[in-house]
């Protein structure tokens, strides 16, 4: 479905991505892991055309998208739920959803999609006329996801959906993601919450300083000691702790 080959992106003179190649197959839930500043967000922004890649190609369902404008890429069926949610705080919840469906010109289709996402997130229809900025963190995240679902994307990009949420809400959001995936949406997920993310993902990429360092299924990645040590919190200290624990 999505194929990135040797993509290099710069911020000014600073190289953020050093030739990243990755692929997402139809119906998969793929996860990109990595520390802060590794370039995870940049990958998603490059796919959406918000930041332009200097080298390399990105194909989506056989169409080259790496030189297209964001609105054209979105029209092809890619939606991004950005980091920090980025809802429009001064607009009402309903207006936020309306903006999510900005590209839908057919009124019936628009009403249908509004119904679909509010059925999925009933809390949003309860708060329809409320200013989005007054929602709680979890509700804002749901709104951000609902807003992206308005266009019924073929590929949903999620940028750290669990950021800044309480453990209970994190579990809820992950349940939603899993649910969405089951309902047939292909998802590319960027997460720091590695344990949870890998558990629901079909395939994972590990990114370090702008390069893909490892890739594989959960089991394959789990085999790698480095991944366990750096991302899954199972280093020599935890092993020693187990030793002491008997």
């Amino acid at each position, binding site marked *: 479905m999505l194929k990135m080959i040797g993509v290099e992106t710069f911020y000014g003179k600073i190289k953020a991505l050093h030739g990243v190649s990755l692929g997402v197959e139809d119906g998969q839930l793929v996860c990109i892991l990595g520390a802060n500043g590794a370039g995870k967000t940049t990958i998603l922004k490059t796919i*959406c055309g*918000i930041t332009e890649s200097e080298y390399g190609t990105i194909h989506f369902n056989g169409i080259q998208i790496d030189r297209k404008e*964001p*609105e054209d890429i*979105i*029209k092809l069926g890619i*939606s*991004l739920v*950005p980091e*920090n949610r*980025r*809802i*429009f*705080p*001064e*607009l009402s919840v309903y*207006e936020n959803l*309306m*903006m*999510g469906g*900005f*590209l839908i010109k057919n009124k019936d289709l628009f009403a249908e999609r509004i119904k679909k996402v509010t059925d999925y997130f009933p809390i949003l229809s309860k708060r329809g006329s409320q200013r989005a900025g007054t929602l709680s963190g979890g509700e804002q995240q749901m709104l951000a996801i609902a*807003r*992206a679902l308005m*266009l019924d994307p073929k590929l949903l990009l999620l940028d750290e959906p669990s950021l800044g949420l309480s453990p209970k809400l994190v579990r809820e959001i992950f349940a939603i993601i899993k649910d969405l995936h089951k309902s047939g949406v292909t998802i590319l997920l960027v997460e720091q919450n590695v344990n949870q993310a890998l558990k629901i993902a079909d395939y994972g990429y590990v990114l370090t300083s702008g390069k893909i360092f490892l890739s594989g299924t959960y089991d394959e990645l789990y085999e790698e000691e480095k991944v366990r040590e750096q991302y899954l919190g199972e280093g020599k200290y935890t092993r020693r702790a187990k030793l002491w624990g008997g």
Partner: protein
Amino acid sequence: MSELLTGLLQESISGIALGCIYALIALGFTLIYKATEVVNFAQGEIMMVGAYVNFFFVTQFSGMAGGLNGWVFLAALFCSIIFAVFFGIILDYIINRPLKDEPVFSIIMATISLAIILRSLTAMIAGPISLVPISPFGDSTIQAGGIVISVLDLAIIISAIILMGLFFFFFNNTRWGIAMKATSEDSEAAQLMGIPVKQVYRMVWVFAAIVGIISGVLLAPRMALLDTTMSYLGLKAFPAAILGGFGSIPGAVVGGVILGIIETVSMGTLSFHFAWIKEINDIIVWIVLIAVLMIRPDGLFGIAKVKRV
């Protein structure tokens, strides 16, 4: 005493008319600032261009129609608005697009340069001699309970209210209007929704040009002479916008109206009773500006300045 009261009332209405024009200038200024974060110092010049362009159309059409009548003014207004659309598109291309992500200082310099260029171009094209503006209503007045109101002032107030009503409707009820608000809140997130941000910016500049041009059309007949110094009145958009709360659209409107009333009333009856007010009339709006900045920097409709990082 009642003389003072009717005097004040009469001047307040005249002040509201002037204030409506300030409000329109401030509205154009705020629209651009909110959406693109460009501080447009040329809004007064856009107004001046509007006055000149409208004058040009009025004289052309009255020549064709063989005299002045209501249709001449309406046709001239219509043509001026069409001119404003193109003017806005051009300004978007030469100011907004190239400077979008430049530092604020460069943008301010560019809009100040634009202001000077517009003033000089107008003087070059229209010639150095001041024009005598033509009012569609002449000097006609209506009387209501001892208060004399000029028909022109009434027309200004009504047109400004209609124009602002259209804008508020557009902003709160249409897909593109809400998209404009969304873009001014978070342009990157708006892009992610598939909102064509560049088109939105162009639309904002076109709107600002339209309110600017119309404010010029409305203001010109109130003035004794029409020349390029008219553009300096555009600077009053700043105290108006700051009084209302910088970046707030209802604030710009209310701030403009209050400013117009303060100015007119202080110049009229009050100055008759208190001579010293006359002396400070020219600076009174700027005193208000400084007072607002000291006492309530966020203005009347101020939005707390929280910048997400």
